[in-house]
């Protein structure tokens, strides 16, 4: 037995072609190793903004998790955060529920009891109740939309009339299906919006659950006369959230929000433009040109592009032979980031990420510039044997990369607030620079 983690070089993968990606790099072909990235990637409620936190991004909402106890167990981690205190409730399923489905009949009464509990204990009555269900109901084929309608109807005529009840599907089983949990939860959230008069000076940025704040995108929108730039995470009240329906157009910054944007286009007549988070300043520039042209905005990005390029140049000058290891537990597509770093003139020794076919294009380009870059899959069982001693990197990016390379300076780069555009490039380069300087000191 080799006791070695399996990897393939970018060149090897290119030679095999998109149709023959090794099983070891694909999801679904092997048992799944429990790495930090796996926990975030494979378990839709475990880390970051999973289904639970995402559902509660609706202001003045609470969540009732209707599931076996095991599904809600790690919610303790989230419940301890001040913004989620008194917002999670549980209706635990037992074995007879599994056979009879009677837990579904309890939901309307459970919703009422929770609302009464909040009112009686002097807390604010929520505007929306998100019902979170899990794999069991996926297999039982539960029509949760109907169950939620029934629960909402049961509130009619009573003291809680008007409170919305919506489903959140935390179906890990369907993570690679047509509507994965993180796609579906975004659709659920924005389904709460109701048609209203359009405001030509309002725009939504959708996709994230924490705000993008310091990015130039906001500046460009403001300087083009956009008065209201709404993100769900900056809406303080439910009423403010509902104002998102007045937007002239949506900017989608995460492909997982594409289906929600399609729904909003159809139901609320809000068209959308999709921007991708990339780390190549040329590509960022191209995207802004496209945005400018499609949305009729006046975007001049030369200053911000120069700042980002300068941050790259400063790092390159200080560390001309800098070598990275890049993980996927980060605010980046690991393959795109690796390719961008190589194009900046750095080296990338190792990538830890699952190679979905849509990322093959990055590996193809990477193979031409850096054929020896090794690609490991976070999920692959032999990652148990990964040894840091073989890595040539001086710095790592990603929480998972830190797990594999604990002694190398690391930038986790997995913060809730999303980096975007030139700001993302600039800040990442500066963080790397600071981490290396700190390590030297």
């Amino acid at each position, binding site marked *: 037995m080799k006791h070695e983690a399996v990897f393939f070089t970018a060149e090897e993968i290119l030679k095999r072609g998109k149709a023959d990606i090794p099983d070891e790099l694909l999801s*679904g072909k092997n048992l799944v190793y429990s790495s930090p990235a796996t926990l975030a990637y494979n378990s839709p409620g475990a880390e970051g903004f999973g289904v639970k936190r995402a559902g509660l991004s609706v202001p003045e909402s609470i969540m009732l998790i209707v599931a076996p106890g*095991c599904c809600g167990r790690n919610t303790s981690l989230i419940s301890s955060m001040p913004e989620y205190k008194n917002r999670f409730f549980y209706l635990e399923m037992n074995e007879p529920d599994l056979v009879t489905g009677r837990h579904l009949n309890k939901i309307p009464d459970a919703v009422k009891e929770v609302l009464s509990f909040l009112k009686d204990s002097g807390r604010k009555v929520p505007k929306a109740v998100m019902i979170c269900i899990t794999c069991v109901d996926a297999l039982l084929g539960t029509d949760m939309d109907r169950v939620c309608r029934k629960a909402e109807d049961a509130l009619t005529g009573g003291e809680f009339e008007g409170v919305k009840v919506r489903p959140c599907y935390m179906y890990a*089983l369907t993570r690679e299906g047509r509507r994965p949990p993180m796609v579906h939860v975004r659709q659920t959230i924005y389904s709460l919006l109701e048609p209203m008069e359009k405001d030509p000076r309002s725009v939504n940025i959708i996709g994230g659950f924490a705000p993008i704040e310091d990015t130039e995108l906001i500046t460009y929108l403001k300087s083009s006369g956009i008065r209201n730039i709404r993100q769900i995470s900056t809406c303080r009240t439910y009423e403010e959230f509902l104002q998102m329906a007045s937007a002239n157009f949506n900017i989608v910054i995460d492909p997982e929000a594409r289906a929600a944007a399609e729904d909003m286009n159809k139901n609320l007549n809000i068209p959308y433009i999709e921007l991708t988070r990339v780390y190549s300043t040329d590509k960022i520039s191209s995207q802004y040109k496209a945005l400018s042209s499609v949305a009729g905005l006046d975007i001049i990005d030369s200053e911000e592009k120069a700042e980002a390029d300068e941050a790259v140049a400063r790092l390159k000058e200080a560390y001309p032979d800098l070598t990275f290891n890049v993980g996927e537990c980060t605010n980046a597509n690991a393959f795109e980031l690796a390719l961008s770093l190589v194009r900046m003139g750095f080296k990338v020794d190792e990538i830890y990420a699952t190679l979905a076919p849509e990322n093959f294009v990055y590996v193809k380009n990477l193979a031409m510039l850096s054929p020896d870059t090794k690609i490991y899959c976070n999920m692959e069982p032999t990652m148990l044997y990964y040894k840091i001693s073989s890595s040539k990197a001086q710095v790592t990016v990603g929480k998972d990369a830190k797990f594999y390379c604990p002694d190398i300076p690391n930038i986790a780069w997995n913060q809730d607030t999303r980096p975007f555009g030139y700001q993302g490039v600039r800040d990442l380069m500066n963080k790397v620079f600071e981490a290396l300087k700190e390590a030297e000191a």
Partner: protein
Amino acid sequence: MKGLRKVLTPFAPDQSGASGVLYSMGALIVIIDAGGCTGNVCGFDEPRWHETRSAVFSAGLRDMDAILGRDELLASKIKSATDRIDTSFVAVIGTPVPATIGTDYKALKRLIGSKVDIPVVPVQTNGMKLYNEGEKEAYKALIDEFADAVPSVTKDQIVLGLTPLTYGKDHIDITLDDIKNIRGAKTLIAASSSGIDACEYLGRDFEIVSPVFKNNIPEGITGKTLVCHDEVVGKTIRDAGVDVDIATFFKLHDAVKKEGDKKITEEDEFIAMVRDGRYDTIAADICLKDLVPDYKGNWVDLKCFAISGRT
């Protein structure tokens, strides 16, 4: 309403209990789930995961795997992993997914066993029971598979149930060698509810005591006390001379139960016990205090990882 939790978060489930018993035994542990249950175990209920790597894997089930009952695919994945990873046996741990589709664990054991040349230990958990039940099932499965009828080594003492989910940092793992020789041990000690079940399963005489709390009554306990923890923790404190009623969300065996003790399930039952019991002291995880904010007596924080997740 039964099963509705308005204050507390769910307690450690059976699959976490099973994993906790098996974690340090050198097994290839396969949790039959889509990923979320493994995330709960490794990311929350198994503090050792952050410190030492262990071969805990998710089966990585997808909807069609479950709907079509693709056990052959699961067995092939396990075979592929055992070809590349050193392990002494394979443990497969159940979750709500196999419970829903009615997985036949005996058949699964045979199927996997036909592909690998190491023992296969299935633990039939379903994520709906509590951790002590999972620990019990894991002990029983290990005993069935590995315990020698006539051990070659006579161990002085083996403690069952001193697990991380009950005792946090004070846990002590048992080894595969302990299991192998368990029928010949001179003394068996049950340190928690699952330990009692395992000892009863062996059909041997045993002592019920918590080595952590024996001769070590937590500071601050005075007067009539309600201990809300594992039953053996309560019993050990009572046996030291404290006037104790036991409340436990887990199991309460007849061998422990005395008048005033109660197995509780719902939040309201704990609230009622506190309200009606007029206790001078409550010794329980501090997170339970949120249930009885008006309680004015003495509170001793008796951490219980299975309840709060605090080590």
